[in-house]
């Protein structure tokens, strides 16, 4: 390598080092200023839900007339993170994925809100402990809960009644028995109607949403992957595989391939092609909006037979919202976050509009409209259940569940048969990625 090449290489490396982000994260002013100016707000809601967000933001603008909020809907986490990294991010961003809180916090993409929370004396004890846990990471409160989601069990009451069932299953054994009774097959053995679809990765049936049924753990106390060492996962996997095998994996794959998109009106539950399913509380509104003729009931997710006391718990997660590192108007962005997440009237109004679970104890108490709805009230109870769990935050975001899901896809199809070895690989991969993320 001649001297000129060395100089050129060194210059390029210095340039590489120089062309990296270095914006200083905003912190709260000593005293809260009057919110003014323009706020850029990116969120992930679309259609009906996006209109509801726009409505509540108009209320905020009416309360703070010197603030104008520009909303960009239908965003996703990848795009938002890239924009923040490039210095062109919004003032505040919302995400559906609580499992990315670790990434948002540890990277500093979303700023630590502690200085704002302390200055304005926001009472965080009014946020339930599970919700507080998924909105912070390693002591950094970089997000606030922007309504929550609770996962439960949906069943088609007409189909259950026709099959002679008085109510939904409470244990996984009952779920298996009812699935077999409610499934209809054609003469050639293919599925015409499924009692319950046990394929991991299809619609909302995921390991995270099933975990509360057995209290399965994601991490050890030292922050390492516990997927391979927790016997609860193995019990859930065996139950699931048995049900998949009863259908025949190829039969299931063929059936699910013919079903409509999860977020469209052609959803299999809307169309009466599946009798029972796991889903979030938002499905109540989707069903009433898109499938008015479907008669349905809601209940907590069935649990493993040996842990009947767990019945009533479920997976809890939610939307999160935070101030981006690149915020040009962080004080007004914080004012909007504070309004959207702690103003009881605003939280209840938004929860009513998009049929999500309110996230403060005051708003939960005031959510009389939601409580009066028997199908939705089930999700408020799941949310309030102390045994309900969430996906713990990690520095590698969604990699933990996705790595596990990759193995589960092979496990359920029969391509992988050695459970212990596969789960050990999952643990190793997850631990190494967490180590790399720092």
């Amino acid at each position, binding site marked *: 390598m001649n001297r000129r090449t060395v100089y*050129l290489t060194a210059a*390029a*490396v210095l*340039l*590489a*080092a120089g*062309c*990296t*982000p*270095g914006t200083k994260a905003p912190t709260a002013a000593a005293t809260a200023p009057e919110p003014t100016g323009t706020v850029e707000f990116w969120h992930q*809601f*679309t259609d009906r839900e996006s209109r509801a967000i726009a409505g509540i933001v108009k209320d905020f603008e009416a309360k703070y007339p010197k603030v104008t909020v520009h909303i960009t809907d239908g*965003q*996703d*986490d*990848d*795009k938002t*993170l*890239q924009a*923040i*990294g490039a210095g062109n991010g919004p003032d505040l961003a919302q*995400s*559906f*994925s609580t499992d*990315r809180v670790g*990434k948002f916090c*540890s*990277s*500093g*993409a979303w700023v630590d809100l502690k200085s704002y929370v302390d200055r304005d004396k926001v009472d965080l004890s009014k946020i339930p402990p599970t919700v507080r846990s998924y909105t912070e990471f390693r002591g950094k409160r970089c997000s606030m809960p922007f309504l929550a989601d609770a996962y439960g069990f949906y069943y088609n009451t007409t189909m259950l009644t026709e099959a002679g069932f008085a109510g939904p299953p409470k244990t996984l054994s009952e779920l298996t028995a009812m699935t077999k009774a409610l499934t209809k097959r054609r003469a050639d053995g293919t599925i015409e109607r499924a009692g319950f679809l046990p394929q991991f*990765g*299809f*619609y909302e049936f995921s390991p995270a949403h099933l975990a509360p049924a057995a209290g399965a753990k994601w991490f050890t106390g030292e922050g390492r992957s516990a997927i391979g060492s927790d016997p609860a996962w193995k019990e859930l996997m065996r139950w699931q595989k048995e049900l998949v095998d009863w259908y025949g994996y190829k039969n299931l*794959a*063929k059936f*699910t*391939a*013919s*079903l*409509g*998109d*999860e*977020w469209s009106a052609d959803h299999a539950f809307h169309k009466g092609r599946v009798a029972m399913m796991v889903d979030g509380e938002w499905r109540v509104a989707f069903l009433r909006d898109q499938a008015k003729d479907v008669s349905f009931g809601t209940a907590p997710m069935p649990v493993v037979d040996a842990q009947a006391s767990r019945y009533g718990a479920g997976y809890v997660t939610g939307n999160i919202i935070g101030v981006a590192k690149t915020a040009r108007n962080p004080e007004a962005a914080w004012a909007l976050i504070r309004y959207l997440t702690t103003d009881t009237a605003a939280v209840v109004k938004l929860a009513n509009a998009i049929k999500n679970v309110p996230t403060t104890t005051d708003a939960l108490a005031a959510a009389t409209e939601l409580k009066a709805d028997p199908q939705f009230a089930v999700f408020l109870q799941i949310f309030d259940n102390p045994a309900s769990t969430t996906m713990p935050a990690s520095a*590698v*975001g*969604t*990699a933990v569940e*996705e790595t596990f899901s*990759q193995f589960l*896809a*092979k496990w359920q*199809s029969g*391509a992988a048969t050695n459970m212990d070895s596969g789960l050990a*690989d999952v643990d*190793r*991969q997850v631990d190494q*990625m967490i*180590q*790399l*993320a720092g």
Partner: protein
Amino acid sequence: MSTVLRRRLTVLAFIGPALAGLVVFFVYPLLAAVYFSLHRVDLINPPEWVGLANWRFLFHDLNVRHAAGNTLWFVVVMVPARIVGAIATAMLLNRVKRGRTAYRTLFYLPALAPPVVATLAFVSLLKPGTGPVNTLLAKVGIEGPLWFNSPDWAKPALVLLALWGIGDLMIIFVAALLDVPVELYEAASLDGAGAWQRFRNVTLPSISPVVLFAAVTGVIATLQYFTQAAVAASVASGDAVTGGGISGTFGYPEGSTFTYPLWLYTVGFRNGLLGYSSVLAVVLFVVAIAVTLVLLRRFQAFAGSVR
């Protein structure tokens, strides 16, 4: 100013814009990728030196082996399939006497379709149960496969999509075939050569530079195969619209369409390990260069053997 200096400056002025583009869009990103591969990078904070930690993970990463295997499958199957398909289509089109231009346009048109749109259309056409292809197959008593919903058929379905869009390559072969001197075919026929011998000893040597071009560009493009695999997986999974981003569905079904660039993107932008994804980028570059060099050497041997 001396004549030599003036001449050098003139040359530099002419090649300057191209040189600047090369430095900014090739040399700098390449060196930056090497630099980032030795750091913890999350796009938000200044890079943090981690030595060879990212490189060590390359040898333990289970996903990279799986993703590289899928990409290798595409390189081995899709590239030759596209070249053979393009040559065959070009030869057939050159035989057509009437309406040749119309047919050429017709076969070229799919290449103009944006990859996302073309993939969406293909997933709809091949949707098991409701798609027109399986409906037609069922009418003649054939049970169609699950196409993009089957781990065995998803990759072949993507190859079909690539074959549908061979217009770009086909049009180059049409021109190359028209350039083959007719006298060579006449001489070969007089010598008693059959159709295969004429193709093997006249056509192939004459168009071999174009075959090499198609092979090299095809391999490089397939090593970077991303859009079609991502869109097909997302749409076929039935979970196309999520706030978590499209990358949550990459590889569906069962990781069968999970290519190397998809893992590079996922681990970098979804999992935030930009340092490690830089390692993957550097490896991809080295592999692309190596494969190109091997192809060039093999081509010399191939060209020599057919002459």
